[in-house]
């Protein structure tokens, strides 16, 4: 049986969502190893990577979350993953930050992400915000450049895309000293 589980939760925001999910996990003997949780307007979203305890059963967890879901309306999705997947970071390449901003319109995220995908540049994190006052859309991406793609090459194609979309796109290498 899988020793790790990926779990996603989505629901209308209110106090107690994190507590209700983590209570079920704790009582089932699970350990939360990694997570990302955030509020987007009225929807609260959680992604968790948990390791299962010796006595945890997938069926037991499914039952608990079914009951929680019926009671609270939270959407809970469970995905068993292999041990190896549960312990390794799969993304390769060197980390870069890409900033995109400009007048909002449909197609910015798609345009940027499809260009990155075509060049085998893997997105590892995305945050976007929309400012109604300025009608400005901002997207910050952290992405991994494969060896085959130089920073100069990535800069060139992103700048060209920015001109086509009418937004500013910049990319820089993440420069992290060890202190």
């Amino acid at each position, binding site marked *: 049986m899988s020793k790790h589980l990926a779990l996603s939760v989505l629901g209308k925001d209110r106090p107690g969502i994190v507590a209700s999910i983590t209570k079920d996990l704790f009582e089932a003997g699970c350990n939360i190893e990694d997570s990302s949780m955030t509020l987007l307007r009225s929807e609260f979203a959680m992604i968790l990577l948990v390791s299962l305890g010796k006595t945890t059963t997938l069926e037991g967890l499914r039952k608990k979350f079914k009951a929680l879901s019926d009671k609270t309306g939270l959407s809970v999705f469970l995905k068993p993953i292999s041990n190896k997947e549960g312990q390794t970071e799969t993304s390769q390449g*060197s980390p870069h930050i890409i900033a995109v901003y400009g007048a909002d319109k449909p197609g910015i995220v798609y345009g940027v992400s499809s260009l990155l995908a075509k060049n085998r540049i893997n997105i590892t994190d995305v*945050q976007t915000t929309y400012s109604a006052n300025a009608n400005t859309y901002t997207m*910050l991406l*952290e992405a991994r450049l494969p060896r085959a793609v130089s920073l100069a090459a990535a800069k060139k194609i992103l700048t060209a895309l920015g001109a086509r979309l009418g937004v500013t796109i910049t990319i820089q290498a*993440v420069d*992290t*000293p*060890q*202190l």
Partner: protein
Amino acid sequence: MAILEICTIPAPILKEIARPIETVSPDISELIRDMLETMRHYTRCVGLAAPQVGKGIRLVVMDISVYPKPHPNHGQLILINPVITGRAGSRAGREGCLSVPDFTANVTRAETVTVSYQDATGAKKIIDSQGFEAVALQHEIDHLDGMLFLDRVTSIKTDVFRRKA
């Protein structure tokens, strides 16, 4: 000479206030040599504070000149009992720390600092530092007061990154 073991969170020594050094004893001189060797052993490592190698004393070694990207610097620095006596401006930059594996964060620091300290011979010195070196000085002197960069983060959403390499 030896490469020293790095203490990582949650080691209690990283949260303690380090003791002043009264005299530069032979033991301290040996520790300085070992810390320099340890700092140079790790890629992109340009500074190390004594609590990071398990010694609760006010000692920092630094060398910005070895960093891949050039920055104005004073070369190799050995700082005993360093004190920041002046600071001005502010800048944000990404920092990593051997004692905080798996995370990096954007931290806001002063752009320039004045630091008084004693060198490896015990002689009193004062330097004015700017930019990246000033940031590194603030990070290392924080270690002597039990402060980690995680203690200076103000926004998870924009400041903390899980290190993926």
